[in-house]
């Protein structure tokens, strides 16, 4: 694959302020806290991490469904974060989103035909006469019969609704799709149908996916590269195969080890993490993972680790590697930012 950057996210931050009433200071939730990564054209790039670590916020901020607090989102050479409303709107044709909840994300008052015609109309795509034709073709591609055109979302199963959600995103022929937990709400057998559909569409239309999920076995199966998030930060990025074979960050190691076995005879070495994920409104000092890390050292409580490059674009942000070669583990470098 020629590695052409389709999307570059640079030092992106998204903070939410939660009001505590008139006389108290707002609580600041650092949902996304200074993350950077690049997505190449044609690849599937995964964001993985536990609930609340900022995956959805990252996806929404990239599409500017919510405004970034700071940072750049460069899509095809344009900084999305600074675009005016109208320019952003036309750019949305190329950047679409598939949502986690197939029940909540489709307007219940609209028929399937209306739901699929709408984006074409809004973006003035195709001639009016051709639109219905395109809609039927799209339905066929996602495996739904055109007899469904006049039905309403509630008449469909979760898997069928997710297909409609995908059809709605793909019908504008975008370059890039943010898929936020597209299969999490689905049953095992339906989940594999939807994953296959996404793989097929990617081949057919050369789509680039940002694939958000907390299911590591799905990520291992269908993505090319992975970024692991913890409390609003990216702690590791690697090729999918490398990540599963040679995870560097202790959090990644724990995450992979926590995946249930796939056969009863399998014997798995487990790293059981203590405690829960801390709140992003009050993240721990130093490395945010130190409260649960089995290898935490003094420096981890005091200083935020830097990101280190291993081979082939494999990066990890952890003091184990910044201090390893040094004689004293407690040695604190002076180049902290």
């Amino acid at each position, binding site marked *: 694959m020629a590695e052409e950057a389709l999307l570059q996210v640079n030092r992106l931050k998204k903070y939410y302020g939660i009001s505590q009433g008139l006389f108290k200071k707002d609580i600041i939730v650092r949902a996304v806290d200074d993350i950077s990564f690049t997505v190449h054209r044609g690849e599937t790039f995964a964001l993985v991490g*536990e*609930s609340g670590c900022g995956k959805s916020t990252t996806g929404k901020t990239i599409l500017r469904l919510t405004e970034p607090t700071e940072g750049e989102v460069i899509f095809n050479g344009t900084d999305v974060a600074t675009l005016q409303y109208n320019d952003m709107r036309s750019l949305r044709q190329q950047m679409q989103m598939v949502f986690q909840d197939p029940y909540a994300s489709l307007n219940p008052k609209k028929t399937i035909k209306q739901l699929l015609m709408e984006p074409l109309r809004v973006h003035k795509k195709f001639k009016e006469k051709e639109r219905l034709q395109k809609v039927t073709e799209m339905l066929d591609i996602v495996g739904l019969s055109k007899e469904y055109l006049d039905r309403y979302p509630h008449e469909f199963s979760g898997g069928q609704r997710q297909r409609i959600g995908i059809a709605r995103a793909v019908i504008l022929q975008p370059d890039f799709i943010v898929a936020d937990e597209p299969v999490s709400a689905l049953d095992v057998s339906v989940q594999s149908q939807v994953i296959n559909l996404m793989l097929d569409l990617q081949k057919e239309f050369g789509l680039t996916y940002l694939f958000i999920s907390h299911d*590591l076995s799905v990520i*291992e*199966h269908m993505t090319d590269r992975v970024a692991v998030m913890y409390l609003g930060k990216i702690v590791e990025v690697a090729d999918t195969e490398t990540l599963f074979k040679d995870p560097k960050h202790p959090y990644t190691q724990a995450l992979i080890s926590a*995946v249930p076995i*796939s056969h*009863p005879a399998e014997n798995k070495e487990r790293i059981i993490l203590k405690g829960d994920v801390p709140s992003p409104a009050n993240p721990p000092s130093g490395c945010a993972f130190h409260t649960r890390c089995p290898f935490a050292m003094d420096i981890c409580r005091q200083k935020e680790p830097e990101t280190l490059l291993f081979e082939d674009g494999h990066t990890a942000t952890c003091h184990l590697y910044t201090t390893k070669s040094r004689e004293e583990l407690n040695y604190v470098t002076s180049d902290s930012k």
Partner: protein
Amino acid sequence: MSDAILKIKNLKIEFKSGKETVQPIRGVNFELKKGETLGVVGESGSGKSVTSLAIMGLLPERTSKIVDGEINFKGNDITNLKEKQYRKIRGNEISMIFQEPMTSLNPVFTIGQQLSEPLRQHRNMSKKEIEKAVINVLNQVGIPRAEQIINEYPHQLSGGMRQRVMISLALLCEPDLMIADEPTTALDVTIQAQILELMKNIKQENDMSLLLITHDLGVVAEMCDRVVVMYAGEIVEVAEINELFNEPLHPYTRGLIDSMPTQNTRKERLYSIRGQVPRPNEITKGCVFANRCPLAFSKCFEETPPVFARDDHLSKCWLQNTKEGEVV
């Protein structure tokens, strides 16, 4: 088998909604042996939760009815027990962890108040003794600063901690049987790993039997001794855990195992079972799985298969038709 603590025989449950009657549980049979962990797997709507509510005597009284069959617990038929008698069993000899941790803890009572309730009801203990027992059980499930947590409310706890509280609630009266309905589905993987580990330990220490309901075959592989596979309100296969994964007999079970991403080559299309689970009102004659089954032949669309047995391995599929193995 005499060492069964729970026996479900030919259970059929109907629901009335408006004028319509549906029967989402259409002949469920299985046994849970003393001390074992039995998994119940099946997709959404297959009837896992309804079956477990029936065991707990918690089916909605006005809209549902057990129309046939028997639930036998420790040798006693508890199918038609009066509510008053059920209360002596529920939370005491049988306890349950519900699918939704948030909805099953009451937001207006402290953790301590909620955990005291079953002990007040079932045990003759002083206030002091109760508090000690509650703190003890919270420690057992790995809740830090239990002495403080008993004065806190559910919303002050994280999802993982709430689930621990639910488990401790189910453990309080040292039940013989614990039913856990998707106990980790709402949790993150690292927390799921903690809770599963915890449940394994507790089961061992307390000499308890566990009925573990889940749709996740990985969790089943991790936890269970035997597995019951449910599909559209029926049991389609029962097998020992290794046998289930090594030699699934029912095409539905085989399909489920084959669609696990780990069973497929990376980046290639996954094996998938075509179509979807029929709703209760869509079920017609023949085998319930026939319309999705890659191996179905004409008989499958005509006649409902009986349960065929190969030693302890049961499956409800015409492919197993060798006269002598027939159970029903």
